[in-house]
C-alpha cells in the first residue's frame, strides 16, 4: 500500500482555561486507508517515543456507532468524508505533501477539555430535560448517536438535528398527550439555552455519522407550535 507524507497542524490546549494553538507535526507514512484517529495515534506514538505529552482526543468504539469521538478536519466536523465518524474517516482526500488541520469540534456548547477533547455534556443536559431514559430511547430509535457533530458543523451552533430527532421520536414514547407536551416543552426550553438557531443550511446532515435526514429539523417547529396552540380535537397519545 502506498504511503504519503502529510503535514498535520494539531490544536494543542493544555486545559479549558489556557489559550491553545496549533502545533505542526510531520507524518511521513500516512496512507489512504488510515483513519483520522489512526493518524492521531501515529502522531502520539511519535510523541511518546520522544518523551512528549501525547495529543488528547476523544476515542471510543472505533466502529462509528458510539458517538464519543469527533474532531474537525480542515474545517469539516468529523473529517473529509460525508456521514462518517472521525474513527471511520479515511485520508483518501489527501495527497502527498498536503497540509491537514485538526481541531476540536467547535461550538460554545462544546467547550474544549484538553487538546482535541471536548465536553459534550450539553447534549446530555438537553436529554435530561426530556426525562433521560426516555430521551435516550428516543434518540436510539431515531438513530442519533449524540456525537455533537451537527452542533459543531453548524455556523450558528445549532443542535437542531439532535433536538429535532429527539422531538420526532419522543411522541410515540409518551403515555398521553399531556406527557408529550410536557416533555417536548422542557426539551425545547433546554435546547434554547444550549444551542443557536437553525438556518436549514444542512451542514449537519452532511456530517451526521448516523445519516439523520434533514426532515428531522422541522420537528422542532412542529412541536413548538403544537404546544403553543391548544388541541382542538383529541389526538392519539
Amino acid at each position, binding site marked *: 500500500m502506498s504511503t504519503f507524507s502529510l503535514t498535520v497542524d494539531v490544536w494543542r490546549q493544555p486545559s479549558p482555561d489556557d489559550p491553545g494553538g496549533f502545533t505542526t507535526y510531520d507524518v511521513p*507514512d500516512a496512507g489512504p486507508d488510515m483513519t483520522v484517529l489512526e493518524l492521531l495515534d501515529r502522531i502520539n506514538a511519535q510523541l511518546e517515543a520522544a518523551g512528549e505529552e501525547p495529543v488528547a482526543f476523544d476515542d471510543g468504539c472505533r466502529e462509528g456507532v458510539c458517538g464519543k469521538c469527533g474532531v474537525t478536519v480542515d474545517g469539516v466536523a468529523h473529517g473529509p468524508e460525508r456521514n462518517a465518524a472521525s474513527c471511520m474517516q479515511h485520508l483518501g*482526500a489527501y495527497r502527498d505533501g498536503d497540509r491537514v488541520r485538526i481541531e476540536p469540534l467547535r461550538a460554545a456548547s462544546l467547550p474544549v477539555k484538553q487538546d482535541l477533547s471536548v465536553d459534550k455534556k450539553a447534549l446530555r443536559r438537553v436529554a435530561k430535560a426530556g426525562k433521560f431514559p426516555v430521551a435516550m430511547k428516543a434518540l436510539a430509535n431515531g438513530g442519533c448517536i449524540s456525537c455533537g457533530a451537527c452542533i459543531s458543523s453548524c455556523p450558528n451552533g445549532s443542535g437542531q438535528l439532535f433536538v429535532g430527532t429527539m422531538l420526532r421520536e419522543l411522541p410515540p414514547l409518551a403515555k398521553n398527550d399531556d406527557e408529550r407536551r410536557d416533555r417536548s416543552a422542557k426539551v425545547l426550553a433546554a435546547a434554547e439555552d444550549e444551542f443557536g438557531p437553525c438556518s436549514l443550511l444542512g451542514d449537519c446532515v452532511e456530517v451526521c455519522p448516523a445519516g439523520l435526514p434533514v426532515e428531522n429539523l422541522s420537528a422542532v417547529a412542529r412541536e*413548538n407550535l403544537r404546544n403553543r396552540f391548544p388541541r382542538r380535537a383529541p389526538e392519539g397519545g
Partner: protein
Amino acid sequence: MSSSPTTPATAPRPAPSRRRPLPELPRIAVPAALPELSTTDLKLGMAGSGAVFSGYVLVHMLGNLKVYQGAEKFDAYAEFLRTAGAPVLPRGTVLWTARGVLSACLVVHVGAAGVLTARAWRANGTLLARGPRRPRGRRRSPWEVLRRSMRSTGGVLGLFTAFHVLDLTLGARPAAARDFAHGSAYANLVASLSRPPVALAYAVSMAALAAHLVHGIPEIANDVGVGCDRRFQRRLRIAANAFGAVVAAGNTTIPVAVLTRAVR
C-alpha cells in the same frame, strides 16, 4: 511502523483568535411589554414576513413585465395601483395598505434576523477566522455559497430596495435619473435602467434575490413545522428553485431589454 522522528516544527504559536469565545454579546434590549421571544418564535416571525415578501416579489415581477405592453399600458397599470378599490375606497388606500404591510414585515424580518444572528454568533462561540481550504469532495460551488449566505444576500436586497425606492418611487437625485417625473412610470424606468451601472446593480440584486428565495422558501416550511416529509421537502426545493429562477429571470429581462433598446 513509526520509525520516523517526530518533528514539532514549531513551538505552539500564540493562539490566534480562532477558538477564543466571543465576548458576551450585549443582550438585545426588548421593550418591557414584549415577552422574551424564543428562537422558534423569532423564526416564525421571519417565516411569516418572508412568505409575504415572497408573494410580493412575484406579484411585483408580473407587474414589471407589463413594460413590454408599452408606455400607455404600463402607466395605466401604475395609475391602477393608486386607484384600485375606487370608488369605494379613497385613492391610494390599497397602495398605502400594501406599503404599510411591507414595512411592518421589513421591521419583523430585519429585527428577528438581528436577534437570531446575535444568538447564532454566541452559540458558535468562535469568531471564525477563515479556515483552511475545505477537503477535496467537500468544496462548495459559488452558487452553493451564495445560497447559504442569507445575511449577505439579505443585506444586498435591503440596500437595493432603499436605492430602488429613492430611484423610482421618490425620484430623489442622484439615485433617480435626471429627467424623473412623478406619474410617468414607464419613462422613469427606461431612464433609470439606461444607466449601465444601475442596470448591473439591478441584475446583481436579482441574483441575490434568487439565492435568498431558493434557500428561504424551504426554510419557511422548516420553521412552521411542515417540512417533516421527505418527498414534500424535495418537491418544495424544486418549486423554490423554479420560483427563484422565474422571479429573478423575469425581472432581469427588463434591464437587458432597456440596454439593448428593445424597450425604450
